């Protein structure tokens, strides 16, 4: 594994050295399963990142073979060199993450989330720690008890209910008000629907809002300027906005969850991220305006 001893020590100190082993023999079964899926997913990662990472796009065959060997990668011979290199780095970091956070381990979708970090950072340790930080919120979506993902789906449903009651009534009628049709958007934060560059833009705006919420900066200013306040749920507002923008088509044509799901998955490649964010802000204003104040 391409991690230095100091980094391995860092995992141990943070995790008390036992989070993984506390799980007993099952831990080993889990890691074998995760390893297998991580490898499968890593070699299937798309090459969209390549133009944004010239240094990694031009990585040598020699360096790639070294990294791929260290990661124990096989079944990757058909890939071009830079993609092999990317896949090997994904494997190393995802395996390290699975050990670091054994309650989450590995779940499909996490390779999509990690890929931009790996592409933009040449150092594995840097990409790893950024990913850890990112996963502090994203990991809830992968909780086995489904509490995290349900909260997000319900949150999206609530926003649509308040912002567009007519569309919501239609969703109820076709038994889709639980919003499972936006599952993919929630789990990989629009990574599948947007291009690489659009995804990065969206994620940064979402992080900026979370930072504003955490520090309190910009909240008062938004109030003064009568602009939409920052929110921790910007992703959900953005998803709701993408759905609401297709309200006409959905209400006229989608007569079941299947058609709705098809419509949502077909959004890939058709979205304008800035338009979507404008729409999302508009929804934030609308929902905050309509929703009764919750007592604090």
């Amino acid at each position, binding site marked *: 594994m391409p991690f230095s001893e100091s980094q391995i020590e860092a995992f141990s100190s943070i995790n008390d050295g036992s989070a993984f082993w506390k799980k007993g023999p099952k831990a080993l079964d889990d890691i074998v399963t995760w390893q*297998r*899926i991580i490898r*499968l*997913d890593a070699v*299937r*990662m*798309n090459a969209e990142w390549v133009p944004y990472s010239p240094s990694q796009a031009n990585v040598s065959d020699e360096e790639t073979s070294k990294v791929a060997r260290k990661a124990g990668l096989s079944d990757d011979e058909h890939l071009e060199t830079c993609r092999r290199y990317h896949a090997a780095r994904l494997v190393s970091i995802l395996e390290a993450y699975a050990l670091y956070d054994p309650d989450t381990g590995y*779940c*499909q*979708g996490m*390779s*999509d989330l990690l890929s931009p970090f790996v592409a933009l950072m040449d150092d594995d340790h840097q990409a790893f720690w950024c990913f850890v930080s990112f996963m502090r919120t994203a990991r809830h979506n*992968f909780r*086995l008890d*489904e509490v995290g*993902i*349900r909260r997000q789906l319900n949150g999206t449903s609530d926003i649509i209910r308040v912002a567009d009651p007519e569309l919501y009534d239609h969703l109820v*009628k076709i038994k889709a008000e639980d919003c*499972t049709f936006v*599952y*993919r958007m929630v*789990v*990989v934060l629009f990574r*599948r629907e947007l291009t690489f560059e659009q995804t990065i833009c969206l994620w940064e705006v979402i992080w900026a809002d979370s930072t504003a919420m955490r520090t309190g900066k910009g909240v008062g200013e938004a109030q003064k300027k009568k602009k939409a306040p920052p929110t921790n749920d910007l992703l959900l507002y953005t998803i709701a906005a993408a759905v609401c923008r297709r309200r006409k088509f959905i209400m006229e044509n989608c*007569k*079941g969850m*299947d058609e709705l*799901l*098809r419509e949502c*998955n*077909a959004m890939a490649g058709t979205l304008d991220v800035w338009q979507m964010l404008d729409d999302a802000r508009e929804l934030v204003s609308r929902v905050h305006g309509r929703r009764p104040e919750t007592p604090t």
Partner: protein
Amino acid sequence: MALSSSSSSVSGNEFDHLFKILLIGDSGVGKSSLLLRFTADTFDDLSPTIGVDFKLKLMTLEGKRLKLTIWDTAGQERFRTLTSSYYRGAQGVILVYDVTRRDTFTNLQDVWLKEVELYSTNQDCVKLLVGNKVDRDSERAVSQHEGIAFARKYGCLFLESSAKTRINVQQCFEELVRKILETPSLVAEAKSVKKNILRPGNEPPPPENAGSCAC
């Protein structure tokens, strides 16, 4: 999205039966590739499916115009109750394994068949066992005999296929649909589904439903 435009140009009403088919099996066995080959006749390196994907296919078989809604599920099933809803109302289930990876075959018995038994709402739901990737015969880890024995034991149809070279892909779906057509309870159900779908949205629900809704 050539498929969606071609299917939407055909009126959704012009079919005799609507069947729901589900693709399940471990990650990387080629479920999405089989579906892509069947619906668009192409083969590509595909990213892993997140949650579920969905495709439509119109076909004519034995003089019947059929509309297939095919649900392509993710191989790593982490969210059991969330994904159980995909099984609802399916007339056919395709259990896929990779003939070069033995674990994907054993998991059908250990994991996937149990899921079908647990969540399937149709007792007569037709099961088809598919061993994919036969183009890599030199790496084969599951023999055809084993596939046949498994299918016999669990009452499944059986085929070996390759999404890459097209072998048996069309046949997979056709055999499954043919068997569904031979199963009266499934055909009757598909008819009633069609009737519901054709009912205009603003029409009041039938009286027996209205009664129970009001309470």
